[in-house]
């Protein structure tokens, strides 16, 4: 674990795996420090932003983090219904050397967790994707991916909360309310949450 200075009020914690990211995020979250303003996990880092003068307390927590231990923090379990009729379903099946039915079964039978969010509000990067579905992005990204699209890229799967450009391979779509800023909890998914997909329609 390396601590990198990030201005006067933040520290960027760099680790070696997505599992260690979750260990750091969960430990800082569990400490429930009033000094912490933002706690932002990413692929290999956790950004912790503190109120002015609050970094010392954050560093004390970071000093005691056990990277091999996953702290249990409150998390939701969410099931997202998916209609598996995405435009890249055949491509994903062909790349994996399996049938489209097997793609659906693999994707819907796995249990995922939210590693981090980014790219757009409510866009959650889910890990736990079966190895066969670890696939590269499209050679040429789409200029418009419809809201609700469910795709895979690399070790991640995700659902697009709104229409944006995107290069993920799309295997289905959902009408789950992924992000609504008027809601008390605007994002359906937050880091640490457990997620399952359920074949619908």
């Amino acid at each position, binding site marked *: 674990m390396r601590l990198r200075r990030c*201005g006067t009020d933040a520290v960027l914690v760099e680790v070696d795996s997505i599992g260690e990211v979750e260990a750091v995020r969960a430990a800082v979250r569990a400490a429930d420090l009033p000094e912490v303003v933002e706690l932002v996990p*990413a692929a290999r880092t956790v*950004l912790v932003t503190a109120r002015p003068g609050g970094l010392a307390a954050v560093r004390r927590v970071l000093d005691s983090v056990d990277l091999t231990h996953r702290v249990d923090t409150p998390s*939701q379990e969410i099931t997202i219904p998916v209609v598996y009729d995405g435009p890249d379903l055949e491509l994903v099946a062909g790349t994996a050397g399996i049938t489209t039915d097997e793609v659906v079964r693999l994707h819907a039978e796995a249990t995922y967790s939210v590693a981090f969010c*980014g790219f757009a509000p409510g866009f959650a990067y889910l890990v736990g994707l079966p190895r066969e579905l670890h696939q590269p992005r499209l050679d040429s990204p789409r200029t418009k991916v419809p809201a609700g699209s469910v795709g895979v890229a690399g070790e991640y799967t995700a659902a697009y909360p709104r229409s944006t450009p995107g290069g993920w391979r799309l295997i289905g779509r959902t009408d789950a309310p992924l992000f609504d800023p*008027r809601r008390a909890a605007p994002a359906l998914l937050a880091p640490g949450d457990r997620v399952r997909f359920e074949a619908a329609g």
Partner: protein
Amino acid sequence: MTTTHREPPVGTPSPEAAPPDTPRSPAGRSFTILRTGPQALVQDLGRPGNAHLGVPPSGALDQPSLRLANRLAGNPEDAAGLEVLLGGLSLRANASCTVAVTGPSTPVRVNGLLRDSPCHLAPGDELIIGAPRHGLRCYLAVSGGIAVPPELGSRSTDVLSGIGPSPLRAGDEIPLGTPTGIPAGADVLPPVQVADELTVPIHLGPRDEWFDDPAGRLRDGRWTVSERSNRVGVRLQGTALERTAHHRGRELPSEGLVTGAVQVPADGQPVVFLADHPTTGGYPVIGVVPPAALPPLAQARPGTLLRFRPQG
């Protein structure tokens, strides 16, 4: 799946949905927007604390100016006001209220007459904010605050994510809250001073080692503010910040960004991120500009000369 909670229609009393300090808009307390300049937005102090959901902090770019305007209008400092880019805003008050305009020196007229802040508006009065002679952004606070519905605890418009109210347009009716405090009395308001040349402090890191002689290049380089700057970030043109041979062509997994982060894309031209910045980014951040140095950057017009002063 979690149950979704929709807020009740506007006007339905709901103690759960609205904290006690949320301004309400009694019938008739509003502004009618008659005209806007290049951009007029509702802004408060933003919605920090949501970056882990992919939501930028947003909020007024020149927070000291918004806070001052609110104090003058008798509001808590975090009330929502208007952030007016390059003036050109005119509005009609539909209720008695006190307004204050802060930021760079700007002519403010009520029914055609120049007025100082704070000043009183009677129902039907028309207020015009002219173009500032220097700088970019003025702030208007009104007694009771702007009372559009909050999203994620803030009324700010986030131009990157589209969260919060749409940019103001002619014909919009903007609800005002109920005044809770007493407007400040007569004041001499020193306008925000806008320099033609900025020297901006910067703390190196978290990815300064990706660059050749980062402190030296930042100290000796010269930039100008690009016209492609906006609430997301101030784009700079000038000295290219070049990567070390070892880091050339490498990719960085996306990582969290703070406001004030100076990110350097592949072309070497730095971007200083402001309030509506993306929550994560994949280009290396060479250093971070401290919060106190950001308001002057948010007032820097395109063409402003800029240099950095690396801090110890």
